């Protein structure tokens, strides 16, 4: 009996060059046109201000959520521990400014309470991160 040898047709590799062109283009667009988000939480809606407030954005690791929870360095911290956690992380000799990422819908009194807790040695000016509206 004569067996037929199996026909092995090697599929040619698809040409990836045009795909990689587009992907590089999109990558470079994102690197050049965007800036890194200063905080990682995605469900935060910032207070909106007219484009005139001081436009510095520093990485902020204290996040006050709309429901009153507080995230510090990526983990939820009860308010009682927040003050010690923040002052432990800061060098007590210098009063470094602190930026809080506060949700616009958060109760203002709760924010003031958080600010009172955080204030201490090593914490200088406290400011709130806002989203600036675009000039028309």
């Amino acid at each position, binding site marked *: 009996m004569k067996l037929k040898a199996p026909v092995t047709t090697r599929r040619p590799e698809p040409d990836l060059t045009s795909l990689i062109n587009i992907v*590089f283009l999109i990558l470079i667009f994102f690197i050049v046109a965007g800036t890194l988000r200063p905080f990682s939480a995605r469900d935060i809606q910032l207070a909106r201000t007219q484009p005139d*407030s001081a*436009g510095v954005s520093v990485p902020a690791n204290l996040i006050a959520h709309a429901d009153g929870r507080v995230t510090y360095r990526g983990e939820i911290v009860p308010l009682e521990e927040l003050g010690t956690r923040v002052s432990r992380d800061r060098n007590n000799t210098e009063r470094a400014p602190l930026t809080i990422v506060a949700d616009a819908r958060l109760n*203002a009194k709760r924010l003031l309470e958080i600010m009172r807790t955080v204030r201490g040695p090593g914490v200088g000016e406290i400011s709130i991160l806002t*989203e600036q509206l675009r000039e028309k």
Partner: protein
Amino acid sequence: MRINEPDCPKRNISLTPLIDIVFLLLVFFMLSTTFLKFGTVKLDAASSGDGVADPAKIVLVHIDGERRYKVSGVRIKNAELIEAVNRLVDAGARDAVIVVRDEAAVDDLVNAVRLLRQSRASSVRIVE
């Protein structure tokens, strides 16, 4: 003289690992970049007992939530806040004191602080 051609066949470089990495970078940048413009508003709530303002020279601004404000008890529109405070500053007042009500949200507070800093009031304080 005869030079032998080098007999190494031209091989296609596989682009698959390259595109793996490029896709990885692309996804990272897509998730971590933002096109928003950020700003900051300084918010230093004067804690009690920290230099009491002269009660005769303060402008009381109540924040009721949803950007509704009362200046010295009179309800005013958001756009008129600066004017209303300036009028009182011209009449002899000096410091603006923000009174935060229960219904007020962070958005209202930040907006009020920002507007009052633009007015001619010499200091802005926050009380609860």
